[in-house]
């Protein structure tokens, strides 16, 4: 039996090799065709991606839970060991914050009065949708995360995603129960920002490294290390004033920004619905995919 199989294997080999080669060629061509299609018709591919993600989301949700629990246990053990110092630090911080609270109260009432004087029309109140990070994907070439909130929770493409620390990214694709968030460090991320102190406008461009760069700075603008960068709200994609990061390097060659949000610490995020119309409708997203420097 074994012998016959062996013999058969040898006899069939040449034709099988040919067939194999055609098979491989076909599959590689199919892969390239998909890439071209992905370039040409973003909408369809994103829909396919969203439905695949939706199908796998429950599995990822279950898988990501024990990891998160373990992570929390480690954190708690760490916290126990430094309870004393932490307590002292918090007391001190509390003192300081009470002062700030008083200042904020005073400013708030003052603000209220002045707004009353000016007949100021307040902007829409933002709505928040909380989601848990169920996948941290992409490896070295794409920086994105999946959250377990989708269309059924009110998430829509183009919305800003934040944590208590600052801006995480924007919703890039959304399925029924899961949404993909493009992080600000991704190659395709472009966020209109301002330097908080000087109000210098710029665009924060990700390049798949940990430090996105400031581009389109006006000529002669000075940016120094430690400057806070916040969203500008230009282009209508994001509300203004969300903290993004601080300037880490500022040289002739370029300005890089250290984001406030750490990718590895993302566990729960908030999708912010400010009722603004995102700039990322289908057509501009298609152009966005091909953005070069």
């Amino acid at each position, binding site marked *: 039996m074994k012998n016959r199989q062996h013999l058969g294997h040898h006899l069939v080999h040449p034709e099988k090799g040919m067939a194999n080669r055609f098979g491989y060629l076909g599959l590689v061509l199919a892969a390239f065709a998909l890439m071209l299609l992905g370039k040409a018709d973003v909408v369809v591919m994103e829909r396919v*991606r969203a439905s695949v993600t939706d199908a796998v989301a429950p599995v990822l949700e279950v898988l990501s839970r024990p990891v998160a629990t373990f992570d929390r246990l480690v954190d708690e053990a760490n916290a126990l060991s430094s309870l004393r110092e932490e307590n002292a630090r918090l007391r001190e911080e509390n003192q300081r914050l009470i002062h700030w609270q008083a200042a904020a109260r005073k400013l708030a009432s003052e603000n209220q009065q002045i707004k009353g004087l000016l007949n100021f029309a307040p902007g829409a109140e933002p709505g928040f949708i909380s989601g848990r990070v169920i996948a941290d994907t992409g*490896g*070295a070439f794409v920086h994105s995360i999946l959250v377990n909130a989708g269309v059924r929770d009110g998430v829509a493409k183009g919305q800003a995603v934040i944590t208590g620390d600052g801006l995480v990214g924007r919703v890039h694709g959304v399925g029924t129960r899961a949404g993909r968030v493009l992080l600000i460090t991704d190659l395709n991320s472009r966020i209109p920002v301002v330097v908080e102190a000087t109000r210098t406008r710029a665009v924060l461009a990700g390049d798949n490294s940990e430090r996105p760069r400031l581009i389109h700075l006006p000529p002669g603008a000075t940016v120094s290390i430690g400057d806070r960068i916040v969203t500008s709200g230009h282009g209508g994609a994001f509300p203004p004033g969300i903290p993004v990061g601080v300037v880490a390097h500022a040289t002739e060659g370029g300005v890089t920004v250290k984001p406030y949000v750490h990718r590895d610490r993302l566990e729960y995020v908030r999708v912010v619905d400010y009722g603004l119309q995102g700039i990322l409708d289908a057509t501009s997203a298609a152009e966005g995919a091909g953005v070069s420097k």
Partner: protein
Amino acid sequence: MKLTFWQRLDLIVRSVTPFFLTLVLVVLGQVPLHIPGFAEVAPLLPLMAVYHWAIYRPDLLPAIAVFFAGLLQDALSGMPFGVNAAVFVVVHMVVMSQQVFFTGKSFLIIWLGFSMVAAGATVLMWLLTAMFFSAFTTLDTAFVQYLVTVGVFPLLAWLQVRWQQSVLSQV
């Protein structure tokens, strides 16, 4: 010897496990581990499965299965559709063409082979994404990811060999 229905079913279920395990590795690779700096350099787990089964049991993980595993990887990771599919198929093809070389070789040689295949795969992936986005990124993180991938390989290879010896011994 004639097999009963259940025996045949058992064989079929066993023989699809390599494909199923490859898909599991694709999904496992997406789970957030909350380790600083790890997400960018997380090992390419499915690549190891593609390599392993192409050497030992190509009949159980044919090129078409590898192609679909690549598509799932693309869909979940947010990479352009077709990039991982192309990379996995090319890896499968390269390993299959070296089948004679790999048979009966020691683990060190298999590992060395993987380090070369993974290097090629990383560069190919980088080239394809660069072409797709028409922007070249630095290869630094990709290089670290490559090192992590090669480093994790022995563990996964051992698990897969165990699986092959226990579950697939009769298939």
